[in-house]
């Protein structure tokens, strides 16, 4: 546990150093594309003095000065499966973004969607030593959370305190300075496969970059695609990526659950490729141009030409109606959504006060998806796009960039995590001395 604490703190310090230098890159390692944005921080403290939340929701402290995407290679199900290929793809994206930004980037914050994220809810309680909650007490409360056995070869990526309760008052965001006897905290912890993190770290190192933070893409796409009241009242963000579909549930502006389904747009493409006997690249193009999930009578008459260069005239001149294409795509999309539904049910999503569901990610651009999703997931479904940030090129504003934009927010306004608090002082002499002082104060 201490090793994790230290490595995460080291990453946090590196991120601070990068923000002081003013330039940091965010890297979204996805299964279908790798996106790299270069952020420049200018005057982050300018708006700190302002009361309330400004029109840009406080996101004016940075600017995107470079953006690049490249076709992903060697990433499957949101995990790195071929290191060399992935390293080359990262290099391509970083080089193009650097070229656009005309600046050299040394620190990178990366996110990935796969690696089997698992959520744990922890809670801990302590008796306060004084009557006022101090930062040290918060740290002690966090340390008092009993850690579940999350298994060998897993690594914690997020451990965020989501709720504090003081005696019988719950729902405190910041208990410091309040009076009470007993402090209870709830923490949300997300673990992923350690091997995936190691692989990513290695790839980034091979590109002469320093990894200044990692995040789960389900979390960061929720940060950018959910609007503020959705985050506050409770909502689920479903990020339909290429190789994995991430889902995250937000409540009171904290992520309380995250998971990923190991199915995504590439499986739809694979189905088309197999069903229509066309290469994968062609299947991808057909999907993006003609894809859909709700067939109408018009679709029976719209024919799609399937080109081929096999030399067999009959094979190369085939056509297929759009209704057939939809007939191939729909079962797979339904399967993905039903799997998501199962995960949401397992997480107890139906008990939340508000059950808004936001679909984002590249897969959410399938026409008619919102109708299908509302039949499977519930009535309150909308399609989400990432929020606007300064300097983002038009090409990078689509829902496919939800996690990249979310990474920007994550980099500039990180939430408190467990390792941001100092380790509690648990050494015996200090405690006994405190006890002595307390005894004197109580009895004299």
């Amino acid at each position: 546990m201490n090793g994790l604490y230290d490595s995460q703190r080291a990453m946090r310090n590196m991120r601070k150093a990068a923000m002081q230098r003013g330039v940091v890159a965010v890297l979204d390692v996805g299964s279908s594309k790798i996106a790299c944005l270069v952020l420049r921080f200018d005057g982050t403290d300018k708006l700190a003095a302002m009361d309330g939340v400004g029109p840009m929701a406080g996101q004016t402290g940075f600017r995107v000065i470079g953006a690049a995407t490249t076709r992903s290679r060697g990433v499957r199900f949101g995990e790195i499966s071929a290191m060399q290929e992935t390293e080359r793809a990262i290099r391509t994206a970083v080089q193009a973004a650097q070229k656009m930004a005309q600046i050299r980037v040394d620190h990178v914050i990366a996110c990935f969607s796969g690696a089997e994220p698992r959520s744990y809810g922890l809670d801990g309680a302590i008796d306060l030593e004084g009557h006022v909650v101090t930062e040290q007490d918060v740290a002690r409360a966090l340390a008092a959370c009993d850690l579940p056995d999350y298994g060998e070869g897993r690594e914690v990526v997020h451990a965020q305190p989501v709720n504090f309760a003081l005696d019988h008052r719950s729902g405190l965001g910041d208990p410091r300075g309040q009076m009470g006897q007993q402090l209870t905290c709830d923490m949300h912890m997300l673990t992923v496969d350690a091997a995936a993190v190691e692989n990513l770290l290695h790839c980034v190192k091979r590109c002469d970059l320093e990894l200044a933070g990692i995040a789960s893409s389900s979390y960061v796409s929720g940060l950018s695609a959910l609007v503020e009241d959705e985050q506050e009242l409770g909502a689920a963000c479903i990020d339909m990526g290429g190789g994995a579909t991430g889902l995250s549930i937000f409540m009171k502006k904290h992520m309380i659950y995250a998971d990923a389904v190991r199915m995504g747009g590439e499986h739809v493409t694979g189905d088309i490729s197999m069903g229509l006997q066309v290469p994968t690249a062609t299947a991808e193009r057909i999907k993006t141009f003609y894809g859909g999930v709700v067939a109408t009578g018009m679709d029976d008459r719209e024919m799609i030409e399937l080109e081929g260069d096999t030399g067999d005239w009959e094979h190369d001149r085939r056509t297929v109606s759009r209704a057939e294409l939809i007939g191939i795509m729909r079962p797979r999309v339904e399967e993905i959504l039903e799997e998501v539904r199962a995960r949401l049910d397992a997480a107890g999503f139906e008990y939340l006060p508000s059950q808004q569901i936001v679909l984002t990610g590249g897969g959410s651009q399938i026409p008619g998806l919102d109708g299908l999703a509302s039949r499977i997931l519930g009535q309150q479904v909308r399609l989400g796009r990432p929020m606007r940030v300064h300097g983002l090129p038009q090409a990078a504003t689509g829902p496919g960039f939800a996690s990249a934009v979310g990474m920007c927010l994550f980099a500039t306004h990180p939430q408190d995590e467990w390792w941001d608090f100092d380790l509690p002082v648990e050494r015996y002499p200090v405690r006994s001395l405190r006890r002595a002082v307390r005894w004197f104060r109580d009895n004299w």
Partner: protein
Amino acid sequence: MQQVSPPRSDPAPSRWAYRFQRLMLTPLFRFALRVAVPFALAFGAAGLWLSDADRRDRIVLAIADIRTSIQSRPEFMVDLMEINGASPDVSGTIREIVPIDFPRSSFDLDLAQIREQVMALPAISAASVRIRPGGVLRVDVTERVPVILWRTAAGLDLVDVDGVVVARAAGRSAHGPLPIMAGKGAAAHVDEALALFSAGEPLSDRLRGLERIGERRWDVVLDRGQRILLPERGAVQALERVIVLAEGQDMLDRDLVIVDMRLPERPTVRIAERAVQDWWKLRKLSARSNDL
């Protein structure tokens, strides 16, 4: 119906290309490449080229040639010297002590030094030297005007108002109208001497000259060996008193040798030896006639 085309290829850069691009985006490296390298190259090339002594000499020679060709242009040449405000013999002296062989470039003329040389002449009180357009070196001088003659053991000198010896006088007769003075240290009090001469105007037909006595006071020397001894202070007033006496009582026409005015409250007269004896003789005669 739309044609479906394969996706465009997106080749990854090689590791070295990637590193090179990052290096080129490093600010310090770019600065070095933009400033330090050209500077070092230019400096090194120039240093290498100049390290040959022959080349250096040639460059120096070429610069000197250009310099000479500019300096010897006719616009800068000085052809003659014009001396203004000097008598012919003084201007001859100036030409002698400033030996410039014309034509000469004006860059080679040190006007300040020429002026110093001219000013060193005793006969000249002020001088200005400049080069006039048209290649003329013009020397404007103001000569010292001799106002008095000064007889010393060495001879007769011409002295101006400031007491500077201008020249050796040819003789007393050559400078007829000038008054004459003598004595050591007389040159330092020329203005007082001139004042005495103007005060002694009524005596001018008898006045021979002034003599400085003991470097502190003046004697007026008249013909027939008469002298007027003047005090250190108020010499002019003392002389005027003597003149009044001379006009009123014909004092100087009598047989006096010395009128001593050194003590203003007790003027003294010395009578000539022979006159004293005559006077005594007369007193005896008159006493005898009274006895008779």
